[in-house]
């Protein structure tokens, strides 16, 4: 300290250096403080349940007492469980149908509500957006009411034109079709918003130049709009895939996975096994399988996205 007062050069350098050091120290500590809450929450509600689920999947835990390690017994039983296969198959089938449907509908509607050649776009947007306000449970209620087999409006209209009652609730495939309608109807708004924002960012000059060169509307869409939308399209496909694979609440209210258990999807299966039959160990094994599937799907889609970026 004494030296600093004697030497004028050091006197000016040290406080500055000291201050820089304190700024640098601040820059290491500050982000720690900023993310502390998120780290704790992440650890408590993602990492811990994830690790615990992995551990339980190797035990016979039933919610009470101590979990006992039983090796891969749960997985072995799971891979011989016919119900599990049918649930897995149904979930995959549903996802394969739902993703293209969501994609085409929400992109189509986003184009329609932003195109120059349509009238009444603003009120139309409000209508398309409305289902976003509605919870999955109420969404299920709305479509259950509309497609009731004996009392629904759809079957009533069909009966008026002379068509026999369509078994919307007792036929497995038709029930799944209603689930698809309901989820597309409910999911349009959010995806439409994503596409609308992306469409707004496409430079008008590109499209105008193509128009002057004689490109038709479809050609402009196919060769300019669609490639420029690629990042958003990827996002919509990824989010819809994940959303479809974990579809649960809406189906609970719509038909409970019925008829019987024919349209039971993965999350409902996990819920049933884990909570209604309290086989937490077995349900955790199913959770881990679903988790691996989701990771694989996400990684494949990200690869695909990277590949399309480079071309």
């Amino acid at each position, binding site marked *: 300290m004494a030296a600093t007062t004697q030497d004028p050069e050091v006197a000016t350098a040290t406080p500055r250096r000291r201050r820089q050091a304190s700024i640098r120290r*601040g820059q290491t500590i*500050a982000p720690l*403080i*900023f*993310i502390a*809450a*998120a780290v704790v*929450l*992440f650890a*408590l*509600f*993602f*990492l*811990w*349940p*994830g690790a*615990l*689920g992995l551990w*339980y999947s190797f035990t016979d835990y039933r919610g009470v007492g101590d979990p006992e390690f039983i090796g891969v017994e749960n997985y072995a039983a799971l891979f011989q469980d016919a119900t599990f296969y049918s649930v897995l198959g149904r979930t995959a089938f549903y996802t394969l149908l739902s993703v293209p449907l969501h994609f085409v509908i929400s992109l189509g*509607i986003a184009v329609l509500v932003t195109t120059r*050649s*349509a009238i009444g776009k603003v009120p*139309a947007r409000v209508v398309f*957006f*409305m289902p976003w*306000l*509605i*919870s999955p*449970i109420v969404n299920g*209620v*709305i*479509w259950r*009411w*509309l497609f009731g087999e004996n*009392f629904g409006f759809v079957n*009533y209209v069909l009966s*008026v034109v002379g068509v026999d009652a369509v078994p919307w609730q007792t036929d497995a495939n038709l029930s799944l079709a209603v689930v698809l309608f309901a989820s597309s*109807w409910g999911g349009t708004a959010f995806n439409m*918003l*994503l596409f609308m*924002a992306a469409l707004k960012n496409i430079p008008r000059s590109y499209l105008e130049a193509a128009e002057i060169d004689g490109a038709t509307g479809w050609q402009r869409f196919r060769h300019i709009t669609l490639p420029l939308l690629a*990042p*958003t399209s990827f996002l919509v496909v990824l*989010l819809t895939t*994940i959303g479809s694979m*974990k579809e649960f609440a809406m189906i*609970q*209210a719509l038909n409970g996975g019925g008829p019987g258990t024919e349209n039971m999807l993965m*999350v409902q299966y*996990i*819920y049933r096994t*884990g*909570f209604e039959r309290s086989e*937490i160990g077995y*349900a*955790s094994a199913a*959770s881990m399988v679903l*988790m691996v599937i*989701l*990771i694989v799907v996400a990684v494949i889609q990200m690869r695909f996205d990277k590949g399309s970026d480079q071309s």
Partner: protein
Amino acid sequence: MMTKLRSYGPATLLLWVLVLIYLFPVAWFILSSFKPGSELFSLPLSILPENWTFSGYITAWNRFNFAQYFFNTGLVAVVTTVLTVFVSAMTGYALAKYKAKWLSVFFICILATTMLPTEVIMPSTFVVIRDLGLYNQLAGIIVPSVITATGIFMFRQYFKTVPDELLEAARIDGVGEIRAFFSIMLPLAKPIAVTLAIFSFQWRWNDYIWPLLVLNDPNRYTLQLALRSIVGADNIDWSVLLSASVISLIPMVVLFFVFQKQIMNADMNSGLKD
């Protein structure tokens, strides 16, 4: 006139056919809720109620503890939303403005939460909630849902667009890191905070999975759980179910009309897509 019709006609027609398709399910649902119970199933069905009535609403309101459900749902949605905005802003800011290896690692962790939603690991999540003493507590729905990848990404993306010079100038002036965030950066991000608050409120108001996992006592039910218990009954009382469902939508409709501009112009791409 003809050319105008030809250029506007097809798109407009398609648009409005779709509008009617989208509008009908909800219109049928709302109109039915104003029919007396006897009219709901009497053929021929008519789109408009012949005798408009609130009887379904009155029965629903009296038979269930709706005021309590509204209070529970509202409390959860508001508290979670406030916490979500703060935590997301701080986390997004740290990820945007500081460079460290562990920050990138944490960013990947947050990214992973979008791929691995809670639904997937329900059984073990339930055990965690129970062991933390959060079972059957409203806090048990609030605390776990505070952290959202979407919110964090939205703020991260936004703070990346704020010039670093601003922060450096503040540092040279001797403003500490924490104060720089709260007094300079956070006020700048107000539009993002509003957008996230709207979306978060909607997510929480309509959430089903966390209340289902955490709540058992009907007095602590949220609206979605209450509706699920009506629709899950062996004999559904449609008159009550329709009215109760409509009631649960009212706050969301109000929210939409108040914040219509922010919602319709929200560019969620920036938040979700890096």
